């Protein structure tokens, strides 16, 4: 269960990562001191609502942040080496080869003017110095692996000739072309229908086992997280508020925000008679970011101590929590019990 201790077991360790966007008036801290690790061969889910900084965290990992954004601090250790100290040329060797990425919208991330085969074989030509013919052959193998029917025909088609699910499979084929050790999937199924989503998630899981790949899955869909991840990091306003193994997150969530998220999701497998429990208010804008705990203005338990920022504390199981309720400094209701209504699975 301990994910933080032995660095040999972790393929990726992100420490105190800070990424900011600079406007004329202010610095927007999109990622504000994020720390997490991905154990080898495991899937870590990064969840949060829009604006929580989950996508910026993943883009920062591959150093894909463009102006006016900048990584302003922290370290990103991939197999023990800090990626922030690498040159751009070294990074290019890593991207698509050792670490790959899948994006949400396959239509905008595939080039419409090249065939599927040309786009997949690019990875082989650059990273493995293969010739054109060999590269296309390998591309066909890849398409077969991701379950595209008649790959010999598909390899010569353009993205617009494929359906959404097929395009996402092509993206996956492209990302997996060079057997990456780490796959970063940013909302890989959000644009897809549920029956297609089920296919794609099954595929990623299956390939992960076969290739012993580690996966960082970024999503807002808690159902997807529950079904695919080993560990979950919950982000809110640029910070990780809770990190735990998937069973703990869903059966015994601790942070009031995690609990609020789980509760506000209408379940499809049972009925709720009353109103859905809600998190009051909305995510604060960067200009109005609270000084202390970012969640305090929306938190039903907020107390005086919440006006200062809690730190991310690790418990004996390796799970982490950023909340004053679980510290000896807690000055609110000593009897307070944070638990999700959703976990009362009586029906």
């Amino acid at each position, binding site marked *: 269960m301990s994910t933080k201790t032995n660095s040999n077991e972790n393929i990726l360790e992100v420490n105190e990562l800070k990424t900011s966007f600079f406007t004329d008036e202010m610095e927007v801290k999109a990622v504000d001191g994020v720390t997490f690790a991905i154990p080898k061969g495991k899937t870590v889910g990064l969840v949060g609502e829009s604006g929580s900084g989950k996508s910026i965290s993943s883009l920062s990992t591959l150093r894909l942040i463009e102006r006016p954004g900048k990584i302003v601090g922290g370290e990103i250790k991939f197999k023990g080496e800090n990626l922030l100290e690498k040159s751009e040329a070294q990074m290019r060797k890593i991207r698509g080869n050792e670490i790959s990425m899948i994006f949400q919208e396959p239509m905008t991330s595939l080039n419409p003017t090249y065939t599927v085969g040309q786009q997949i074989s690019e990875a082989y030509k650059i990273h493995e110095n293969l010739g054109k013919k060999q590269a296309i052959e390998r591309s066909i193998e890849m398409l077969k692996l991701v379950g595209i029917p008649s790959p010999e025909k598909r390899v010569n088609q353009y993205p617009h000739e494929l359906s959404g699910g097929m395009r996402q499979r092509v993206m996956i084929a492209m990302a997996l072309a060079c057997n990456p050790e780490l796959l970063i999937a940013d909302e890989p199924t959000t644009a897809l229908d549920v029956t297609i*989503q089920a296919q794609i998630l099954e595929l990623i899981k299956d390939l992960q086992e076969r290739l012993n790949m580690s996966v960082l899955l970024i999503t807002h869909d808690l159902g997807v997280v529950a079904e695919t991840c080993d560990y979950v990091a919950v982000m809110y306003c640029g910070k990780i508020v809770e990190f735990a193994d998937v069973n703990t997150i869903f059966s015994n969530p601790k942070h009031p925000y995690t609990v609020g998220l789980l509760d506000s999701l209408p379940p499809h497998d049972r009925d709720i008679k009353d109103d859905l429990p809600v998190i009051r208010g909305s995510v604060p804008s960067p200009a109005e970011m609270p000084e202390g705990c970012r969640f305090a203005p929306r938190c039903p338990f907020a107390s005086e101590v919440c006006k200062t920022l809690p730190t991310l504390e690790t418990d004996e199981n390796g799970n982490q929590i950023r909340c004053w309720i679980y510290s000896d400094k807690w000055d609110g209701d000593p009897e307070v019990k944070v638990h999700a209504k959703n976990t009362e699975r009586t029906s």
Partner: protein
Amino acid sequence: MQKTQKELLKVDNLKQYFPIKGGFFGRTVNHVKAVDDVSFTVHEGETLSIVGESGCGKSTTGRAILRLDEPTSGEIEFDGKNLLEFSKKEMRQNRKNMQVIFQDPYASINPRQTVRQILNEAMEIQNIGTKEERNDRIIELMETVGLGAHQADRFPHEFSGGQRQRIGIARALSVNPQLIVCDEAVSALDVSIQAQVINLLKKLQRDFDLTYLFISHDLGVVRHISDRVIVMYLGKIVEIADKKSLFTNAQHPYTKSLLSAIPSTNTEGKKERIILKGDVPSPIDPPTGCRFHTRCPFATEKCAKEVPTLRSEDYMEEGHMAACHYIEEIKSGEHQPTR
């Protein structure tokens, strides 16, 4: 939940074909059969949901009912009047009885108008009240949907996504409609905000006796908000039932696979998942017979030839119907998957 059995909206044999132009002189070479022979009724005060995947025709059905697109054929009766016989002017007058809330509130409200102007325009067109009365009503509406009266003179960009959706709801409410078509009305919102808007919609329904036609792909939301549910696939209704029957006793193989495909947050006790092969076929040239037969695990030759009609079996609840040749045989286990 059904307070009355009065039929507010009756849709009969609705067809919506969109022509595909091509060839010489832009002739119509084919049709996209977006909605193909769909019939159902909506009772006063209930929430009827239409679910299905992209391209199943759920939004097109909603748009056709409001005559935002002119239906190809069929009949739509609203409160006893045949909508398709209305002139444009009569239709516009009738729109005060039937309103719509769209998915993306930013795309569906004018960014250059203040909230006050947006709400006023809707009422002005329908000749509701004097200017003063409308102003009072605007303040009342803003409070009804959970916005502050002081925000009335702000522009849409000054609001968050959830607040903008509240503006869309206020606009729909402003003319006192009987029916509101909610087309993916909460789909673009983050879960914490989505829950707030769902609760608001339910409250408004109780307070103003509204009838909802709720179009969504999110089965969790649908289960929470609906009284009855329609499942569509490739332009056809495959199953219609009371919410409870549909979620606990689905009969059509497509409904079953759709329900099993939703990722569940319940990490204990993983459920059996039916993973469908392949993609949804094109609605330009839909499969013969049962449109689901190309992906259905139970498909036979009969399914490829004969179009199944919506029907009920003795053991099914009243009003529960499914369009499948083998409902009973699959249930009894007599008919096993063919692939």
